[in-house]
């Protein structure tokens, strides 16, 4: 039982990290219907930018804020330069553009920061707990705390603010939203900024959690998150978050608890195909 609970806690942490990375992708997909694979590159840049600022200022807060700003800018840059002009083409055209972006940014990171894995020696100011003999380490509680905080903040932004309302309206009917006075291109850019800023947080968090930052750290999330947004229901942000958490727990339990040696990266896609057969609109997706 204790083992099970420990595994659950681990799974939740992995799921929370997946959720942070998937979030931006789901936001972007919801509004532009683009498979934004380069999101994973922004996440990588986020980790590097955070590390660079942290090494020069020794302030984690500054690092997080600076990295978020930088990534927001990068996200908008990709949106304006690559996606927006390619919107009228079939979806694989922006997708190839996106993958080329991912590759170019990965290589750029390597050229700037070097090929070696860098460590991210920051302390996350979170306490550790012991509940009923189960230790929740400070890194684990940091992952919970930060992701819960980010998700909460995002929930507040999307449901309680005028901006969030405009974002949701734009993703549901862009033309009508703009006929209500919403500058939809600006809203698209804002969506990219928010998604990219969250990716920056995810990058820094993962960098600290595993204490490593390296050029290809986005390679696995880049494609796994695609499966997650399908499982969640294309375009549904809560669905993507739910799918991410479920996948984290499922992976952990299957591998660690049940001891089934499964190819972990394929699991997401196997789950995806199962979901598509059972509920083609995804967990929380509505009919379109």
């Amino acid at each position, binding site marked *: 039982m204790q083992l099970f609970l420990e595994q659950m806690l681990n799974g939740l942490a992995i799921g929370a990290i997946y959720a942070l990375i998937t979030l931006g992708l789901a936001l972007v997909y919801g509004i532009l219907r683009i498979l934004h694979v380069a999101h994973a590159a922004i996440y990588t840049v986020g980790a590097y930018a955070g590390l660079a600022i942290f090494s020069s200022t020794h302030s984690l807060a500054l690092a997080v804020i600076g990295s978020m700003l930088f990534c927001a800018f990068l996200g908008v840059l990709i949106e304006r330069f690559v996606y927006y002009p390619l919107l009228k083409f079939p979806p694989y055209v922006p997708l*190839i553009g996106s993958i080329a972006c991912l590759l170019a940014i990965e290589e750029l990171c390597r050229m700037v920061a070097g090929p070696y894995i860098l460590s991210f020696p920051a302390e996350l100011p979170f306490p550790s707990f012991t509940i009923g003999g189960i230790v929740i380490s400070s890194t684990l509680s940091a992952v919970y705390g930060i992701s819960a905080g980010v998700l909460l903040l995002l929930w507040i932004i999307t449901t309680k603010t005028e901006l969030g309302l405009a974002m949701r309206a734009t993703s549901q009917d862009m033309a009508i939203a703009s006929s209500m006075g919403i500058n939809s291109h600006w809203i698209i850019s804002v969506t990219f900024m928010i998604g990219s800023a969250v990716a920056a947080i995810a990058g820094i968090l993962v960098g600290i959690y595993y204490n490593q930052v390296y050029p290809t750290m986005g390679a696995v999330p880049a494609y796994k998150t695609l499966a997650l947004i*399908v499982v969640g229901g294309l375009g549904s942000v809560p669905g993507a978050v739910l799918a991410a958490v479920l996948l984290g727990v499922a992976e952990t339990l299957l591998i660690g608890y049940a001891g089934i040696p499964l190819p972990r*990266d394929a699991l997401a896609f196997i789950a995806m195909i199962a979901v598509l057969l059972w509920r083609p609109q995804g967990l929380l997706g509505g009919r379109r």
Partner: protein
Amino acid sequence: MSDYTITIGTFIAIQAIVACGLNVIVGYAGQISLGHAAFFGIGAYSSALLTTAGGLSFWSALPLVLFITGFIGLVLGLPSLRLKEDFLAITTIGINFIVVSVFLYVPFFGGALGIGGIPRVILFGERLRGTPFLFLCLAFLAAVQLASWLFTRSWSGLACFALREDESAASSMGVSPVRFKLAAFILGTAMAGLGGALYAHFMRFISATDFGFPMSVMILSMVVLGGMGTLWGPVLGALVLGMLPEVFRPLTEYRMFLYAALLLLMIRFQPGGLLGESSFARQIFSRLKGGNQE
């Protein structure tokens, strides 16, 4: 010709064959497939297993390889009947990841160690390597191009074009979407299987990582950049994208960045492909011809 050039040429020829296969699916029938490398891999693995464990020769294994990849292509093409656009795109990515995992985790396929000791192709008693093997690949490429050409001239091909352009209109004209989409999948994946078989017997050992998603993206980029749905587009795309990394070779550490950046620029400014509608090449060509359509 040096063996270096021959090797590059052989890879380009093999990739062109695979790209032609993808062109049948994406360019002719209008179905998105982002997992084409999976079929490239299935072809390579089935040929490798048939010739090593199965003890067959390349030539007797080849029809089986084409059958196997075509059949699996048929099965995995089934989602294209129900799923549209992005769902289909991501599903095909998923298929690629799952197929690679199967190669990697099922001991029958050699697992992480891959399959080695694949025999060379023997033709007229000669063990083919170097230039003769390149010519073999080029001959197969010619055959694939011929098959593509014949396909575009066949009623099946026309049916696929019609489906690509407008599925409801096509089906109201007696074109069964199921039958012809699957036909395109079978033909396209069988071509990928042929490419895979050639690859296996050229490299003489294979491992799952050769057939991952990045390879699929590479093949799709070849088709898109060359000009989707054109006969020569995939070949041109394979040529350009196959040679670019070699052209950039002197730049060592910087070459992959330049390659990616160039790919990005090409897709950004030439999304219809180098041979596609309104491409620079076409515009220049029509200007040279003195055409004044505009």
